[in-house]
């Protein structure tokens, strides 16, 4: 729908995921939303959707025990738990103005990915998904 949005989502969300070893498994762009889904080789899936019509980000992490058994959590919960100073309003678009929120998500996502994949704190995922 909007090349600029696709470019920004790539730069701020997809790129950090790729840099941390996740692979793109699904990308869908249609008139109402843009969804990208990345999979970590073992058991983690991350899905980011920007619903234009709802002016909101739907940002999930899933951990799989098997193909059909998984736990899920929305990133806004993870981010606010990870950093209590994070205000929910900062990580959702303010009407049409989505870029500051996208940048904030990007910043928090990188911190999260660093904790899990760079520092190897994989228990964190189990912990936050409890």
């Amino acid at each position, binding site marked *: *729908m*909007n090349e600029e949005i696709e470019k920004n989502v790539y730069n701020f969300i997809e790129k950090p995921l790729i840099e941390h070893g996740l692979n793109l498994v699904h990308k869908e762009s*249609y*008139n*109402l*939303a843009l*969804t990208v889904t990345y999979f970590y080789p073992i058991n983690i899936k991350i*899905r980011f*959707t920007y*619903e234009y*019509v*709802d*002016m*909101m980000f*739907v940002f999930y992490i899933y951990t799989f025990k098997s193909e*059909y058994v*998984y736990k899920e959590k*929305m990133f*806004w919960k993870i981010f606010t738990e990870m950093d209590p100073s994070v205000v*929910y*309003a900062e990580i*959702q678009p*303010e*009407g*049409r103005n989505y870029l500051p929120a996208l940048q904030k998500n990007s910043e928090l996502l990188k911190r999260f990915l660093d904790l899990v994949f760079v520092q190897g704190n994989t228990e964190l995922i189990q912990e936050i998904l409890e």
Partner: protein
Amino acid sequence: MKSLHGITFVVILAFLFFEISVSQAQAPCYVRLEDASGYEPTAMQLAELEQAAANLCAAFDSAGFGGQFKVYDFGFYLHHSATTGGYPEPFAQKVAEVAGLSPYYLLFGKETDQDGVYKRFWVDLKIPDTGLLSCVNQEDRDALPYLISLQTTKSYHDYNNIYHAYDKAEIGGINRLEAFIKSTVDCCGEDDCLPCVQQDLIESKFLADSFTPIKIQNIRTKIGGFDMAPIKDYAKILFSIDGHEVDIASDISSTVSGLQDSGFSVIVFITSDQNYCGPQLDSVKAEIDTGDYDLVIWHHIQITDTVKKEGILLTNTFFRGQSEQARSLVICGPVCWLLKGLGEFAVSVVMQASITWLVEDDISFEDALGKVNYSEAALEGIIAILPTKHSKTARAATNAFFVVYKKATTQDDYDYSEMGTDYMTAFMFAAIEEYLFSYGSKYGKEKIIRGLLKKANFKYSWIKQHVPGFDLSYPKFCQKLGLGLKNKQVPLNCNVNGEYKSITSQRIMEGWNPKKIAIIGRSQDDRIEPYKKALKNKLGNDYDIVTIKDLPGWNPNVEESLEINRNWIRQLKEDGYTFYDLGFDPRFPTKGNSEFYNMELSEIFDGIEPPWPPIQIQVP
């Protein structure tokens, strides 16, 4: 030889006299000027026209204007509608030219255009104002061309408006003028006015003043009569219209009271041709010209057939300001003239037009006015509406009409579209319930509802803003139809990204088509689309279930997309869809803010939000 010379002299004299007589007899009274249509009349047609014209010229000769009058016939092609002095330009030029050819004349202008030959007849006339014709007053002089024109058109109509019967049309006009001249010559100088009254001339004067004619029957004298201050019944006549008994003075009294209650000062005159020679008509005209009434309603009754007791009711309403200054500011644009011409039953006409406007797609208010059944409207105006003044519909219709009327007479750029909106504002919504089940019923409920939603609901915000106390939101509208908001939650087990989750609709706005459903709410991918699939599984293929994802033509431009979305919602409302509102997304800590969803809430739920936090019912 002398006698031979004498005989020769007599023969020569006789020959000369004969020649002079013949040349005088052959001097044409009917002069055929150029004709752009290309149609060539037959010799027979020309002979008959000349004969009729000669009779007319003879009437002028008898009145002392020998050889000073001629009938001219001119045909022109109308390329554009520009006018000069109310005439098409080619005809106006010919009028000026003919004025130089003969001191007095009757000029016919046959208009041909792209639609055909002789589509319309124009008439210009100049008659003497001295001698035996000096008693023709200016008012009659002004009305006379209109009368001749009416007669010409009527005669043409009698021959199905076929161009090769143009001679019959012109002969009709010529004969009428001849009758007028002869009658006037006989009457000028007589003390008794009544025998000289020429009924069709009076009628043409009223018609020229935009009075509306209505055929009346069973005319009889009224014994006694209604006496109410603002109603001056000089005629004292009862009659019927299509079997409905009418006593104007009595019937109109409730309307007059209603108008007075609405703050209008009003006076009603009821006259007949019997009043033509008395002071009554002059007093009516004086009231219209200089009176202080907001409204002067004038009914004039003509008895056209005393044996059959048939006649014509001519009716009009004149609007006036409160003061001389205000009167001078009264402006009458096309809408104003239309309303004036229709008289009091314009109330009914405008109401009929508004129904047509409502139920027909892609029709302007002006075109809707053209589709009104004016006879029916006249009947409603005089008979149906007035006695039921106390019904909500009649009250609303009358008040709405005068809102429009007052605006039309004070605002020169007032157009039909604005008139439609104003009328809708003041009437439709005030009386919608009664309207739907009475006047609207013959058009079918579905058509009326669709029309109201399409044409009125679109203006709802504007109306709400401008009309104090107005409240007919979409929920209320649906409620009046026995449908509307149902605080009913429908939880469904939905497949969301491979996992079944319970999603609960928060409320339902029931539309008039039970087999059509639209789902709205926040989070399209994770809530709306899964819910749609689940509902489809539950209800089956008989149901048409749509979401915003079905909306084509989405656009990267938010403003445009909003408009596309809004129009889509309106179309759904118009088509009677039932809306399932899934509300806000309970996965988030706040309701969030979406211009699109807010717009949908405004359009469907009058801006009232669904519950927060959302009601969540687990499907067993």
